[in-house]
């Protein structure tokens, strides 16, 4: 702050002569240097964003659009599938993010301890993250088939009558959430491993001297000191869960009926039906919803971190 105030006196000379080094907090590049990026950013990001805000206020059939004010938002909120989609989105986001935190933490503790084939196990846990969501979805659609799927056939071997994972309306959403956890827990584990490894060994040694067992070093050292990792995992997986679409679409298409619909799949179906204005309005709402949940959560979690 201080430097800028002091240097402010020299600014008149800047106008005539080339800027001396550090004369102002100015970029060394001339403005036209930004032009290509600005053009790309403007046409590919800014323009579509503002166009989306405009088209969300129209009835748009691709061939023509008619301004209808907030009509789309009203009919989007009257959408019967919306309440279901909204609760499902929240359930899905909370379940996947919660399970990823718990399982990711446990796996990370396991994979930072001295065990055989640690490097191999780490890559095995991480491997599903690299797969495409659609591919995983189609694979689990086959695995979870109630009569012919590998999962229920294996359960039948031990005498358990497996449920209809993806076709039971009570279970479908949770089944997809489990698949999501299987696919995404590797990333959470990786973040936790980084968090745990960065805790100085001295703490563990000191705790050992004071007579702490493994469980109390977990609760009193790893858990509090891995907090930044927890924040990252919660935020990332919650955002991912709230706007998740590919896995749900590949496994259940929001079905049976509307029972595993999330907001993103409701929007997609409206788009497919040719309700372009309505689905754009839905996207604006999804954007506001994700921001509205994640931003305060982020502030809350990172403030706690500073207090620590």
């Amino acid at each position, binding site marked *: 702050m201080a430097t800028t105030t002091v240097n402010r006196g020299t600014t008149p000379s800047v106008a005539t002569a080339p800027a001396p080094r550090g004369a102002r907090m100015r970029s060394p590049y001339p403005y036209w240097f930004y032009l290509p990026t600005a053009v790309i950013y403007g046409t590919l990001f800014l323009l579509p964003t503002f166009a989306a805000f405009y088209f969300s206020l129209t009835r748009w059939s691709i061939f023509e659009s008619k301004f209808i004010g907030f009509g789309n938002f009203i009919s989007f909120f009257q959408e019967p599938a919306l309440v279901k989609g909204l609760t499902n989105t929240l359930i899905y986001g909370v379940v996947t993010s919660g399970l990823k935190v718990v399982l990711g933490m446990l796996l990370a503790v396991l994979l930072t301890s001295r065990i055989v084939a640690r490097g191999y196990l780490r890559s095995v846990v991480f491997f599903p993250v690299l797969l495409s969501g659609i591919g995983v979805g189609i694979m689990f659609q086959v695995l979870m088939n*109630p009569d012919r799927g590998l999962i229920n056939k294996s359960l039948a071997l031990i005498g358990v009558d497996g449920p209809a994972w993806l076709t039971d*309306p009570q279970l479908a959403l949770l089944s997809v959430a489990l698949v999501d956890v299987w696919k995404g827990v590797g990333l959470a584990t990786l973040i936790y491993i980084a968090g745990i490894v960065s805790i100085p060994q001295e703490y563990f040694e000191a705790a050992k001297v004071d007579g702490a067992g493994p469980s109390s070093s977990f609760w009193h050292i790893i858990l509090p000191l891995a907090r930044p990792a927890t924040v990252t995992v919660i935020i990332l997986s919650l955002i991912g869960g709230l706007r998740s679409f590919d896995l749900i679409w590949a496994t259940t298409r929001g079905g049976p*009926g509307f029972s595993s619909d999330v907001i993103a799949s409701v929007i997609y179906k409206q788009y497919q039906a040719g309700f372009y204005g309505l689905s754009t309005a839905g996207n604006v709402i999804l954007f506001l919803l994700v921001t509205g949940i994640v931003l305060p959560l982020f502030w809350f979690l990172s403030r706690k971190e500073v207090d620590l």
Partner: protein
Amino acid sequence: MRIRSITLAALAACALAVSACSAGDLGSSEDKSGGGKVTLSFLVDNSEDTVKAAEQVAKDFTAKNPDITVKVETRPGGGEGDNLVKTRLSTGEMSDVFMYNSGSLFQAIAPTKNLVPLDDQPWVGQLVENFKTTVSAEGKAYGAPWGTFSAGAVMYNRKIYSDLGLQVPKTWAEFMANNAKIKAAGKAPVIQTYQDTWTSQLFVLGDFHNVSAAEPDFAERYTKNQAKYATSAAALKGFQHQQDAYDAGYFNKDFASLKVSDGLKKLANAEGAHYPILSGVLAELAANYPDKTNDIGMFPLPGDDAAKNGMTVWTPAGVYIPTSTEGAKLDAAKKFVTYIASPDGCDSQTAASTPTGPYGVKGCQLPADVSQVAKDIQSYIDKPGASSLALEFVSPIKGPALEQITVEVGSGIRSAKDGAALYDQDVKKQAQQLGLPGW
């Protein structure tokens, strides 16, 4: 230095612009392949039967018109295909000739704006009237028929019927009585396949003949926002019947996880007796179980009144020319469409596909060895008053969420009455989107 960078920026911008265009240019590549020769692109959906027929038609057409080559391109079906067709039409990148639904979906691609009217073509007079109205907008015809008329009705296994000594039911009560006997014989009375969600709609869509028999002005009042599924006693019956069949336990146990191919397998192997479906899927059955094709017949979804028993019929799809086709290509495209709408064109299609009903052009003949299903459908179409067009061909409105709603009704998640009311809301959105008066 400065100039060079500006050039670079300009280059980057150009590259962007160029790549933006090239993606959609698929349709118009290989414009001129030589003096007087024209290559047409022909876009069809990617179902096996359609592609085979399209390639046969293209081959036979080029044999007669050596100067014109036709290249068949494919697109996905369903909602994805709808989007693709709309996007390519609105950007002027549509193939020179394309195949797409007739009826309400045809109305949704703004035909007066995007398609070349074909009213002046000689073959228009040869079109079957029922088809012509479904490819017409503001009094002008825009399409030639692709494929045959088909039915939304019950495919049934005739072997099971003869083994158990059953009669083709003419009323819903008789149908349910048959189901009870079939169930007692240890077979699934009604096959349902909800992994392909569209198949769940047949109880409702295929019941439309009964609706219009009971309320002849339903379609008109429905389009004008005066008649509703939930409040019209006749229209509600379709939903109700689906719920009744579910409640009685007449569906195959694994209905929630099967696809059409599984359903056809059950039907062909006599594990299930009835399959409410569009007759077009017969092609798949004929390809996989050729020796069992003639075990399968078709009867309409029965209503309350045996005297008014009749079939709900789907018109053929249409073949259209977009306004983006011009000059020599337009002339060639018109020739190609004329061929499709001629008896020769019908024969080409018959040679490569499985026709399930009459063609949309007068003078086209079905082969003598046509399937039992096609014969059954034909018999209803020939009988006066025993067939009606499906609602989507007599009204521009079809709600997009019907298949999810009927999955819910057919799985016991939602009651028939609730489902019908929910569908009415869905219909309202579609009507508003189309900008119809009165909504």
